[in-house]
């Protein structure tokens, strides 16, 4: 579904990603782990098409298309979803209004009729229950006055509504207590499907206790230095990134 080849990215002239190779098949969950500043969020933003990230080398193919040529909204329309590490607030725009506009934009792209208010609300109720997001929160302005945990649950609720093919989840576990983490992990596990790929970016191993990945990659200083199965994440937790980094030295 997603193929990243030798991806080099600069931000304001400094190289951040230095040759990433990564391939994800439909149905797989890949985790990317790495210390702060290793380029995890940069990779997420590049995949979603944020401005300010300059691809200097390499290519990204998504469902056979050149992903880097597409606008952010075109990527979204083709099923790329980014769960933000820091979701922004949009005052005065209710969550459901926002999502209905987004969902109907995607449906339009797929040549489907827009959902009417009744069907939409029905769907919304069902999906909000997945992450225990209250009715009140779905109607409040987007992320305005939400706690850290509520914002993250809101991201997963949006993902559930938009049903992406590829979900990139950027530190969805950061700032969560253990109960909130479980709620989110349960929600995400429900959303696992043979048609959907997930790229879970995290700093800590603990999320991966709940969302068991098929493949784990270690990203350090803009390069994937190790790739393994779920046990690699456990080893990292025990030994730390330094160990992995040292092991890489010639």
């Amino acid at each position: 579904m997603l193929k990243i080849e030798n991806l080099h990215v600069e931000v304001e002239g400094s190289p951040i990603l230095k040759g990433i190779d990564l391939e994800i098949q439909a149905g797989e969950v890949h985790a990317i782990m790495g210390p702060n500043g290793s380029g995890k969020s940069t990779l997420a933003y590049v995949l979603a098409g944020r401005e300010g990230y300059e691809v200097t080398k390499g290519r990204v193919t998504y469902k056979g298309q050149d992903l880097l040529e597409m606008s952010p909204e075109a990527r979204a329309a083709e099923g790329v979803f980014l769960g933000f590490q820091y979701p922004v607030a949009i005052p005065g725009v209710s969550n459901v209004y926002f999502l209905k506009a987004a969902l109907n934009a995607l449906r339009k792209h797929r040549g489907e009729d827009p959902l009417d208010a009744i069907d939409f609300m029905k769907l919304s109720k069902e999906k909000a229950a997945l992450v225990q997001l209250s009715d009140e929160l779905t109607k409040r302005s987007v992320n305005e006055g939400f706690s850290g945990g509520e914002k993250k649950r809101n991201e997963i609720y949006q993902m559930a509504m938009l049903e992406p093919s590829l979900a990139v989840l950027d530190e969805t576990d950061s700032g969560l207590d253990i109960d909130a983490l479980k709620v989110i992990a349960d929600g995400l596990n429900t959303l696992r499907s043979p048609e959907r790929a997930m790229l879970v970016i995290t700093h800590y191993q603990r999320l991966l206790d709940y969302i068991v990945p098929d493949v784990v990659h270690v990203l350090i200083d803009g390069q994937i230095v190790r790739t393994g199965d779920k046990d690699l994440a456990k080893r990292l937790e025990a030994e730390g990134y330094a160990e992995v980094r040292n092991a890489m030295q010639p």
Partner: protein
Amino acid sequence: MSTATEPIDEILKRGYDAGFVTDIEQEYAPPGLNEQIVAFISEKKNEPEWLLAWRLKAYRHWLKMTEPRWAKVSYPEIDYQDICYYAAPKSKDDAPKSLDEVDPELLATYEKLGIPLHEREILAGVAVDAVFDSVSVATTFRAKLAEVGVIFMSFSEAVQEHPELVKKYLGSVVPIADNFFSALNSAVFSDGSFVYIPKGVRCPMELSTYFRINAAKTGQFERTLIVAEEGSYVSYLEGCTAPMRDENQLHAAVVELVAHKDAQIKYSTVQNWYPGDENGKGGIFNFVTKRGLCEGERSKISWTQVETGSAITWKYPSCILKGDNSIGEFYSVALSNHRQQADTGTKMIHLGKNTRSTIISKGISAGHGQQTYRGGVKIMRGATNARNYTQCDSLLIGDKCGAHTVPYVDVRNSTSQLEHEATTSRIGEDQLFYCRQRGLSEEDAVSLIVNGFAKQVLKELPMEFAVEAQKLLGVSLEGAVG
């Protein structure tokens, strides 16, 4: 790295749709202002002597006044002798008596502006008065309104048909010498709308006036007077547009509202005068005096304005809360793009006991736009238990615009309660990216964010106007949920 505001700027650069000129035979007064011109206008309108005397008094006052320069707007000096003070479409003889007699060219103009007078009359149930340059060209639905005793006609007609009402109320809220621009208007006003709602009548439809400046080098000085008798209710809407021209044009209107005991007036404006081009060439200078008097107990006046046009806006729709328990409200969205400058706000003057006022102001600045909220709340000695709530929020788009807030408070009664809240925020690249990541186009994303920002005010507009206002703000209602 490209700046995040570039695409927003693109959207904001969209053209001015109402900028066409109607080719129509016009009758002009020669440019310049003197007592002869004032007399000429009065004579053209076949006015009674008292009104000419009133105009001349205003003119003589005006000569002694100086143009106010305290607002945070800058513009070249206005040469008042270079302006034409009267322009009228040359119709066969007198003004048209019904829509059928209106020049088809004129009707086409309004059609182009999205104001199909004919259809609107039938479909929307909105009575429309259309003012083209200096004269009113058509007022719809008059007969039906007359059945319930509502008078809705052009100001000139009211002078002829209801001189006693005009004489009683003209200048009663905005006195002749109130300010430089109102004095100028009092001397040379040419037309406008007149509304009278008799005691106990709830006006059965929205009343609406569309103002259109067409002629070049012409000022527009309209005068609107609305009187709501005891226990009556009226909702009045005004809209304005002008052609795109390279020179600046002056618009100096006066609006007076009088609400008697238990009466309510809701006054909504969508102002879209030509704002000038990207570099600030051309555009309307909009110097407007709007004031309402809550004369009776429990009366209520609400101003709602969406100000998207004009090169310069100088406008402070105000309420004098004289009756005990009377209520004044001001809801405003003002947008300044390119080189537009807006200095706008309100004055709430509390005289009566238990009077309440609410001010919600939303300023949006983009491009090199400058936006100032200027508001005064005055609690006089007798205004026991008066309350005011003020909220002014500014939204910045890009990094070359400005937003300023200048609140004045004068409290002379210690039992009053005043609250003031203010915020300034920016449409961030992060907000835009968030929306686009969810599948919204950039244009829809900007609309959504601006719409959310202005929501508190837009919801105060009558439905029909809200749609137009949202369109003006570049907002689509598509996908609205309940």
